[in-house]
């Protein structure tokens, strides 16, 4: 992998862009092993890392040259390391309103869809949209589902959904355009917990059928 393309994002941030989510994850893993003075926060996106810096400690030029020196940690070793940690288990009742909309274009039966969703390891790539809303990418072939043509005004808290290459659990009732396939009782966000997000970026997740032993 060649170094990322780096764009300016205002006076105190840079946006590094990558060809794939795997490259984003690998570069971020490499970044975690490097020491970049003045780098204050890294925000993962689907193909980007937003790098915030303290302009009293560093500047865009210096940070750019330091970023060029960062060696990505290969996705293979990152994944192997990740497999050493136990994934978070989320029990799901697969009775979502959009199950038929999802199974129709993919040619899958409902039980095949459930097997596909529960049969793979998901990784929280990044969070956004709402506190605790984790964009999960699967180890299996993604379905690349479109969002609903019209968003729902209220998707219930705990709804398990699919869109594009991602799966997610709605942390609270909110508007949303993702395809709903099920629901869970597991709260994705709670201030009673440290950290409050159940699946911050980097967390491994496995879905299981609720009630199944």
């Amino acid at each position: 992998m060649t170094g990322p393309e780096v764009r300016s994002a205002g006076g105190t941030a840079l946006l590094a862009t990558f060809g794939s989510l795997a490259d984003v994850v690998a570069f971020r893993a490499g970044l975690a092993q490097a020491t970049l003075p003045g780098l204050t926060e890294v925000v993962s996106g689907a193909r980007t890392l937003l790098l915030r810096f303290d302009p009293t400690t560093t500047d865009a030029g210096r940070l750019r040259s330091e970023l060029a020196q960062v060696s990505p940690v290969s996705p293979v070793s990152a994944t192997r390391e990740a497999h050493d940690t136990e994934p978070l288990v989320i029990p799901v009742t697969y009775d979502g309103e959009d199950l038929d909309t999802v199974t129709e274009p993919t040619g899958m039966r409902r039980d095949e869809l459930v097997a596909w969703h529960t049969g793979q390891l998901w990784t929280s790539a990044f969070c956004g949209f709402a506190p605790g809303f984790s964009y999960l990418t699967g180890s299996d072939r993604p379905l690349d589902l479109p969002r609903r043509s019209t968003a729902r005004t209220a998707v219930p808290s705990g709804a398990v959904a699919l869109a594009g290459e991602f799966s997610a659990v709605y942390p609270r009732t909110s508007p949303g355009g993702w395809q709903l396939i099920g629901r869970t009782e597991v709260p994705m966000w709670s201030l009673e917990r440290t950290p409050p997000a159940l699946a911050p970026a980097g967390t491994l997740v496995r879905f299981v059928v609720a009630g199944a032993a």
Partner: protein
Amino acid sequence: MTALTVVQVGYGATTQDLGRPGFSDMGLGAAGAADRGSAALANRLVGNRPDAAVLEALLGSVTLRADAYVVAATTGAACPVEVERADGSVRGAASHEVLLLAPGDTLRIGTATVGLRTYVAVLGGFAVDPVLGSRSWDSLARLGPPPLSAGDVLPVGDARVSWPIVDAVPQPEPRWPDESVVLDVVPGPRDDWFTPEWRTTLTGQDFSVSADSDRVGVRTTAETPLARSVARELPSEGVETGSLQVPPEGFPVLFLADHPVTGGYPVVAVLTPSSIDLAAQLRPGDPLRFRILG
């Protein structure tokens, strides 16, 4: 413990401080004062630490009663200010000056005539319970100390470094009616997703602030929209405060303190920090223009 009681709130008021940066990986933004310069000035006026919590009140319009001696000041959108004594007598006061409230005094902050957000600091800061290390209400995440209502009791803390060392500072210069506010932007990160004419479209016309603006963003309209050169969908990416995010309609949304952590529309340019503060003071209908640096 010294405290102030909220007697009346007009158009909405929240406590704000420097925000809670560092939770982006959980989908939570930093929040904090929308006009950071004015909030910092209010804290300096009374002698507070920079991290002391202040009140951010839409159009001013807040009445507070002190139960002890309290040093206070208002900044940002300038409002008529008066102090009513417990015996009913009224003492003249003004925005952008240091006020001493005696026990039983009522601080009446009237309605701002120019600007949108008024900041109220008290020596020691407002010590409401912090959430995740900050006393900022985040209107997008709906997290933090809740917006004020009449009857709330706001304890005063100890986030002070000195007594006030100046009596007053100049108020912001008033604008002529219909005079455009000029906001400076730095191009990128996604300026190349727009046709090269984006520069003249952005700088060559007046924009107007839409009514649905809030702490998340200042929404704008104009005659000519910005045109995209890249039509494909943008995968969600991290966005900065001050970003000019351009939705399909082609008119920029100026992200303020409560903006989402990531966004799915391209950001054509980012406001400078002082322009973010100016943007936070724009009212619906206000005209504005953009100037591109670099």
